[in-house]
């Protein structure tokens, strides 16, 4: 019985330990207490849902957002390079960037389903622990928006 209990604890610990980030993004943010963020378009920075998301991520990670002035495709390139941790922007549902970066769940949607534009967070591909945190925060923010 004790052995099964120990095995279960070990498995639960493993469940929490994974996934890890190949470039240690989550680890770096935990150590430095800061993460870099940019907006695809400067107006996105002032959007209510975008500000809520950044606040939620700050709360969950215990880190502070450091806003970068870079925008547009340059921001997405820096995200891909790993010099930015998070980019917020409005993306088409069939965005060509979907394979180059990891897009989180939508925070807000404008337009009809075939032409919808969604406000989303973009993270570097493969940084799965960081991606999970941002996804959780995004879902919390969009759930909160739906109840208002």
């Amino acid at each position: 019985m004790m052995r099964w209990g120990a095995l279960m604890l070990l498995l639960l610990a493993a469940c929490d330990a994974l996934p890890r980030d190949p470039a240690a993004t989550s680890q770096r943010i935990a150590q430095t207490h800061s993460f870099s963020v940019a907006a695809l378009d400067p107006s996105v920075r002032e959007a209510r849902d975008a500000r809520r998301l950044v606040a939620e991520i700050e709360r969950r990670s215990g880190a502070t957002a450091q806003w970068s002035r870079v925008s547009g495709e340059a921001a997405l390139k820096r995200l891909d390079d790993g010099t930015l941790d998070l980019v917020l922007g409005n993306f088409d549902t069939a965005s060509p960037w979907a394979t180059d970066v990891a897009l989180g769940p939508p925070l807000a949607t404008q337009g009809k389903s075939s032409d919808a534009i969604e406000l989303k967070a973009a993270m570097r591909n493969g940084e799965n622990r960081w991606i999970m945190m941002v996804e959780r925060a995004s879902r919390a923010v969009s759930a909160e928006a739906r109840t208002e």
Partner: protein
Amino acid sequence: MSDNSLPDELAQTMRRAVRLEYWNIFWTATVIVMMGLVLGQSETMKTAWVEDTLGLVPPIMFLIAARLESDGERSERYPFGFERVNGLGFFVAAVALAAVGALLLYNAVVALATQEHATVGSIVILGQDIWLGWLMVGAQLYSLVPPLIIGRRELPLAEELNDKLLHTDALMNKANWLTGAAGLAGVIGLGMGWWWADSLAAAVISVDVINDGIKALRSATAELIDGAPRGLSSVELSEDGQKLCKRLREEFPGATVRLRETGRLIRAEVHETHAPQECRHPRHYWPGDEERAWRLAQVSFIPPVAEHDIGTAGPD
């Protein structure tokens, strides 16, 4: 001789094999659906999913061949019936495996070379955020079970029917644990932050698929170009064929004996010898177990031809 291509003794075994292959398709479909639901961007999962989908080709080809063999009658257009449909199905399955395996390997190598980092995010189940990788692990574990059970059941039937297509499928299913282990390692490696583990596991699975395809291709091609009988899932000459050759040479010294396979049947030609005076069923010459004598469908005798006989005109 039966009107169709299937020896009468095999009818019941064939019915069991057909039933099993329908179940094979069903369980393989459940694996495909399960894996498809949790694919994500993982190269490992995509490759494993394609491999599982390819797993439908052998049973489908087997069922088509079995239907034609059992129900197709000999006719003027098809005097030998549909004995070789199984071999053709085997060839098609082999080409599919080899070609798709090569494509998968290419994708995996490109992903490794370009250092692609696969994103595996989270999914909400019953209000909880779960890492999709755990569902992938679950799907991979499930995908190990049906092929293992089906492979074990296919093997004795394949040996009884001397069916290369079924035998190859049985061995592939039984060996599926290897690709399952590679798949699990790929997903866990991805979770550990080793981005290369995903593409590496995909490459390992692809090599296995190519290997299966090439082995099957060699065996299938040998039959289709009238090669000597090969063993089941082997490129070596079959023991049955070698014993038969020896038996015929002993009975007809000095003769040239040629054997070929048409599906599960062996056809023999004895050259430079007149046929024996007494009427003998081909099975008379079968050297091994009498229950397997159905394999020898034909023994033809080609008498010696003197040089001055060559080129002479036909009847006056």
